[in-house]
């Protein structure tokens, strides 16, 4: 009992301390009472349990408001100058061979966009933008957390969308510092073959893919909250009338009788619906905008606008005929790509209107 009480008080104290700190921080950022603020923080830290407190990656609170603005901007930019040349020599790049797997990317879903094929058929695409994608670390096969199905594959951790250092836990920032990249909002681990190693810190662009390729996209589905069995699992429910007492949208039966005498695990029941990562497979890429790093993918992708989407190569790509940029696209190699890359079947807006040719009459 005593132990529990101790934990409770310390939790109360931390929450109180955190809320007080927020007030203090606000006034400190305003540039007022910096001395008092600091003293107050020190005293508060001393009287509460410091081992339970989260350490935020603050910058120095004794700066003036103009300098704070500058430091905030600088913090976002300071790691954007590329990987430090002194940290590590460039890693050797290997070639694609059949059976290679390359890394995926993380994109932000922008919205949807209509397009037309060369035969005049209209279809709808989803626009996915690659925002500040960098390789965070490469994990060799021995250390990678693979499972029995994937076997012992290497892994590449990719990060996307620069985050503000003010709102990130300090304990999580070390991996970004090691890679010399700005802090990222989201990181994803992609399993790759050993020959597709990429040096940490390398930026990843939309040109990692090309029009005509097929990709799998994973997005977090729109959350529906706690839902009943009819919406969640598509069960039929019960009739509206004919003597039904208080039973119209229920599950009904739960299983067998005395044997097994219990409900099987995984029985479909009401519960939280949506807000889960779901893969949509084999989506064709029709267009890539290299300037804004936008990929236009056919069909729908789970999730709402502004949400993160994981993209990786689909299994049905015929890479033997046309190998992809391996292990990724490096802009310094080769010529600069045009601003827009289109699939050959896509009707570009600057082309002539589509006209159907008159067929020659068949001889009877």
């Amino acid at each position: 009992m005593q132990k529990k009480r101790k934990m409770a008080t310390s939790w109360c104290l931390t929450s109180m301390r955190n809320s007080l700190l927020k007030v203090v921080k606000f006034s400190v950022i305003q540039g007022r009472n910096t001395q008092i603020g600091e003293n107050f923080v020190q005293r508060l830290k001393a009287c509460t349990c410091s081992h339970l407190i989260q350490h935020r990656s603050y910058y120095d609170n004794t700066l003036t408001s103009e300098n704070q603005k500058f430091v905030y901007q600088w913090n976002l930019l300071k790691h954007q100058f590329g990987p430090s040349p002194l940290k590590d020599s460039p890693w050797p790049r290997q070639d694609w061979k059949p059976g290679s797997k390359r890394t995926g990317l993380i994109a932000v879903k922008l919205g949807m966009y209509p397009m037309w094929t060369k035969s005049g058929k209209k279809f709808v695409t989803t626009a996915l933008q690659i925002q500040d994608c960098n390789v965070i670390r490469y994990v060799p096969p021995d250390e990678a957390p693979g499972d029995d199905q994937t076997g012992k594959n290497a892994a590449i951790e990719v990060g996307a969308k620069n985050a503000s250092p003010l709102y990130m836990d300090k304990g999580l920032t070390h991996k970004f510092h090691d890679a010399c990249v700005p802090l990222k909002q989201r990181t994803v681990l992609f399993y790759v073959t050993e020959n597709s190693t990429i040096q940490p810190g390398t930026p990843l662009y939309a040109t990692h893919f090309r029009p005509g390729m097929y990709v799998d996209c994973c997005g977090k589905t729109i959350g529906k909250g706690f839902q009943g069995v009819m919406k969640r699992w598509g069960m039929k429910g019960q009739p509206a009338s004919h003597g039904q007492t208080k039973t119209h949208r229920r599950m009904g039966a739960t299983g067998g009788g005395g044997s097994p005498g219990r409900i099987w695990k995984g029985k479909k029941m009401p519960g939280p619906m949506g807000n889960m990562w779901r893969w949509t497979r084999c989506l064709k890429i029709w267009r890539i905008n290299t300037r804004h790093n936008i990929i236009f993918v056919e069909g729908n992708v789970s999730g709402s606008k502004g949400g993160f989407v994981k993209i990786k190569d689909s299994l049905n790509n015929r890479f033997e005929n046309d190998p992809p940029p391996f292990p990724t696209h490096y802009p310094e190699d080769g010529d600069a790509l045009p601003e827009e890359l289109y699939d050959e079947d896509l009707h570009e807006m600057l082309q002539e209107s589509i006209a159907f040719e008159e067929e020659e009459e068949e001889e009877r």
Partner: protein
Amino acid sequence: MPRIAFNFVRSVGKAHSLHKYNCRLCCGNVRHFASQDSSGKDEPPTNSKSPSDNEVDAIPERLSPDNKAATLPAPKISLDLLRRRQAQKKDQEQVEKFITPEIYPPMGRRSKILDYLERQDCFKRRMVMDIPEFYVGSILAVTMADPHANGKTSRLVGICIERKNYGLGASFKLRNVIDGQGLEVLYELYSPLLHKLEVLKLEKRTDAHLLYLRDALPEYSTIDPDMIAIKHPPGRPVPVNDIVVKMKPRPWHRRWERYELKGLDVSGVSQSRMATVQDHILPEYKKMDLLMMYPRYDITEKDRMRIEREWEVHQNELERTAKKGS
């Protein structure tokens, strides 16, 4: 006594962007910027013949105390010529540049980059195919590629009853009555299957859509398929047709009396039905409520100016290529 053209009182755009909502505070005929919709809600001259509609209660130039021209003698030109010049000047002042409605993005959380790319694609398509200025109520002839038609193209003449959507998905509906059968076709403005869009008669109506023509007498929707184009003189304002359409007997597709439409005759509707209309219409004071309007006016002034600037650049580009070609 020659009638001198009174100057319109212009609202200064920079003054405040909500000026158009306060237009009743200043004198009646105030010019505002081109608004989102191209229906007849603005105040261009109508077909009605009353002269007082287009005049302003402003102080005429010759009576203002600072005007030195009042002391100079009148110029020696004929009355007819003077009247014609004044009419021309009046028309020129009234004509506002047309900005196509589908480049203004709708409400909601949208990606500005994607909207920009969509607009650029629209402009690219316009370089290839001429998409003329038209409104709901104009008579159009659309030539479209059709794999099953003779000559592989089909042509439909009809009255435009609706214009919808943003960017590349922008669409319009054409209505006509052919051999006694009403026909409505939805066309996508930026579809590459469209070959030609001719405006046979350019005019506006008093409503934002003409879906009530389905329940109106067929004569109001019947347009001759071999109609010859009525050329609209450039620089002249687009005429507003304030025709009031007679309806077929009830039942109708919708309860048109509840929609606040000016172009249809609801005199035949029973009193009991008309009594319920007020429940479905916003009262006047709510229409003028700025707080209600504010969240709906999603596009900021800065964005609107940027979009209009893009349109201007596109128009200049079009003119330049047209000159080169000719």
